[in-house]
């Protein structure tokens, strides 16, 4: 291929990718429509200019990521019908004895823990209404609780392979398994949850100072009444427990993570035998199509060699002192995720880090920095992570809607706290991220 046509190809692919990203960010078009149209255009013009073919586009889609997402969504679709989330929220409130400060901690920790294994958006959709109800019954603002749950669900999700979609993408492209994430990221995620809770306690000091009116109403909630089907819940928990156990061994057994989730999904369908149509409606297909389209788009720009160009600019990441490189990547990832969203950024970065690895460098610290950066950075702005948008729209149904300005103020404070903790870990415990 001549130098001239190479530049034209790069220009075409770059413009399609950039325009799609702008359309997604401007919200002028639904992100799925924008991404799918961009992907279609990438393939059509790729064929015309000879840099991309439909077969190559198919190969660019990471089916392991999609399978893991769909499998876990099917399991969660069963779990959400059991009332488990209401049970957890009520239990948290009772442990906190209705004290707002304790309630912030118990609800936050419960959400962070659940988010380590289940999808954040579903967790927040199910935790938010009961949280708002409890705050309303206490006569206090639900805002601190709603924001804490959302911010901590993003932080909790960083700790496992299945907790956050970016981790699924990273795990799949880097060949890192469930245990790798637990060993390398879980300790840091737990410390960050603690640190962020302290920060949120200070940020919401004024709201949490208020003495709630009627604590006895919260104490009179019956968490067992919240469970809709004890039998269904038991079966769901057995399958989920089995799936998590299998995740611990999937690398030794050489089973891809998507298979673990899909096996779990099949077993739960067989166990519970719901109407499959109903369950499949609960799979967030817009996420699946958005991911697929982004994979096709990134595949296109990868074929034109743009990423190789970028790689030559960031090659030093693999050759300079790894601690410095990983710190740099951590902060860049956080900042970029806040601006363009953590999923598009992760998809752009994974092939670049993979390219750096071909030079022989041990890039594992870079993978961990990317996961931490995009996970924590996603908290900074309303568009940083999908669940943030969801929390804001849920808050609009209350007397205390969360404004974008308020989100940025509180979210970026928590992001700074998390990144500082991550920086300290990366700088002083580099052995943990080898």
């Amino acid at each position: 291929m001549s130098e001239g046509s190479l530049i034209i190809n790069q220009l075409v692919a770059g413009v399609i990718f950039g325009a799609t990203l702008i359309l997604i960010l401007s919200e002028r078009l639904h992100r799925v429509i924008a991404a799918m149209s961009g992907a279609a255009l990438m393939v059509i013009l790729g064929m015309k200019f000879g840099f991309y073919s439909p077969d190559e586009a198919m190969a660019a889609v990471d089916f392991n990521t999609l399978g893991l997402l769909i499998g876990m969504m099917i399991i969660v679709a069963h779990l959400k019908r059991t009332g488990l989330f209401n049970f957890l929220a009520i239990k948290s409130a009772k442990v906190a004895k209705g004290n707002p400060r304790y309630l912030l901690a118990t609800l936050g920790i419960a959400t962070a823990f659940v988010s380590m294994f289940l999808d954040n958006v579903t967790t927040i959709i199910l935790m938010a209404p009961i949280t708002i109800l409890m705050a309303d019954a206490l006569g206090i603002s639900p805002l601190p609780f709603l924001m804490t749950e959302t911010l901590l669900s993003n932080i909790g999700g960083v700790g496992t392979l299945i907790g956050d979609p970016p981790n699924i993408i990273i795990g799949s492209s880097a060949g890192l398994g469930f245990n790798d994430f637990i060993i390398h990221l879980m300790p840091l995620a737990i410390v960050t949850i603690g640190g962020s809770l302290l920060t949120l306690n200070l940020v919401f000091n004024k709201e949490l100072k208020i003495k709630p009116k009627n604590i006895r109403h919260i104490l009179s909630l019956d968490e067992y009444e919240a469970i809709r089907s004890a039998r269904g819940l038991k079966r769901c928990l057995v399958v989920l427990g089995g799936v998590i156990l299998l995740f611990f061994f999937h690398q030794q057994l050489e089973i891809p993570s998507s298979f673990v989730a899909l096996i779990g999904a099949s077993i739960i369908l067989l166990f519970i035998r719901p109407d499959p149509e109903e369950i499949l409606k609960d799979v967030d297909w817009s996420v699946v199509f958005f991911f697929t389209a982004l994979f096709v788009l990134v595949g296109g720009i990868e074929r034109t060699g743009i990423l190789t160009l970028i790689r030559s600019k960031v090659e030093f990441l693999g050759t300079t002192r790894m601690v410095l490189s990983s710190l740099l990547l951590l902060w860049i990832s956080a900042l970029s995720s806040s601006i363009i969203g953590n999923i598009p950024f992760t998809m752009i970065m994974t092939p670049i880090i993979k390219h750096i690895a071909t030079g022989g460098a041990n890039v594992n610290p870079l993978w961990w920095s990317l996961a931490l950066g995009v996970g924590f950075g996603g908290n900074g702005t309303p568009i940083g992570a999908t669940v943030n948008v969801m929390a804001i729209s849920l808050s609009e149904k209350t007397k205390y809607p969360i404004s974008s300005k308020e989100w940025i103020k509180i979210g970026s404070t928590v992001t700074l706290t998390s990144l500082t903790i991550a920086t300290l870990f990366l700088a002083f415990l580099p052995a943990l991220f080898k």
Partner: protein
Amino acid sequence: MMKVRDFMSPNPIAVSTSNTFREVVELFYRHRFDIFPVVDEKKHLMGIISKTDLIGVFVPEYFNLLDNFSFVKDFGALEINKETIELIEHLFLVEDLMVSRVVTVDEETTLFTAIALMRNNQIKCLPVLREDKLVGIISQTDILKALLRE
């Protein structure tokens, strides 16, 4: 062909966007209709208001996200008391509560279309318009009464 014009109740009682909660409740009490159309001074339809819209104010919007609340024995600060009622009856206006996306028919629409619209949208009555102005209301009761008389 049977037309809406021949079955509707003409010149219906309508409310304005600035009517208070209390005024609309009194109208419902006096007239026993299911809905009232909301119009501006030129009789352009702005929306409709039903008893469901009025009663809905007493429960926060997020309640439709809770599929179950049998575990709540006492709603605490949410419970309805005298102050809440006083606040709502004077503070809430029709424009805060009305539904503005409304299925309507023209007076020339056929009766069959009107019935099909009611059935598919699960609604009991339709505002009838002539050149975008409200001229009547056609309800299931109007249709049934008239058809049996025929």
